[in-house]
């Protein structure tokens, strides 16, 4: 299991190899998701972003998320890497990887990890635009109820 907050860039190959190396059996299916900084939003072009986290709590949330995905979808392994700090346009923000016997579990688990990450892990995005900066609005306040989920009450 791999769960990391880091400022530096990550390598697709290294993360794929790490995910695979930690599987007890050879999985039949590996799914990866990578999120990138786009160079525009609804209001026009942006000039990069920065990401803030809650040191300690954010790392624990990622560990719980990967662990719970492994249990819930019977994965052979799962990994999640999220960057924080200043990120330029087009840079990688987040990587999620899942390894399972069959493709449905690998796909479902990767989608689930991204959904849960977006609603439940303490991370905040600020976009630089028009010479200023603004915090990104959360998509749905309802989804934030899921934050409590990562505290282990459901596992």
């Amino acid at each position, binding site marked *: 299991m791999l769960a990391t907050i880091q400022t530096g860039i990550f390598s697709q190959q290294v993360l794929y190899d790490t995910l695979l190396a930690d599987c007890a059996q050879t999985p039949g299916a590996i799914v990866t998701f990578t999120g990138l900084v786009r160079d525009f939003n609804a209001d026009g072009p942006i000039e990069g972003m920065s990401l803030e986290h809650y040191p300690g*709590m954010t790392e624990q949330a990622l560990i719980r998320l990967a662990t719970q995905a492994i249990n819930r979808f019977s994965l052979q392994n799962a990994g999640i890497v999220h960057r924080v700090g200043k990120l330029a346009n087009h840079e990688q923000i987040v990587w999620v990887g899942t390894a399972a016997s069959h493709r449905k579990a690998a796909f479902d688990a990767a989608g689930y990890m991204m959904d849960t990450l*977006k*609603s439940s*892990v303490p991370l*905040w*995005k600020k976009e630089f635009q028009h010479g200023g900066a603004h*915090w990104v609005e959360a998509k749905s306040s309802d989804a*934030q109820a899921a934050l409590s989920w990562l*505290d282990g009450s459901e596992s």
Partner: protein
Amino acid sequence: MIAVKTFAQVREIVGKSDWHVEVSSQLTVSELTEKLIIQDARWKQALAGQVLVAVNQTMRDLSYRVQDNDEVAFFPPVTGG
């Protein structure tokens, strides 16, 4: 003493990330916010929007009772991923 941490918009409004509140007995998160507003009026604005609370890095609500040496964090809805 309770250590109070702030993140993102909340931190920017109150002007710094780390705060401290002296307590003589248990109090709810709601009562803790009253003490913070007394310390600095900017807390009133910071808590006006949707703000989440974690006590010792576990999500809690306003009625949760905090005690000496707890770490209480206030932050907006999350936007990672």
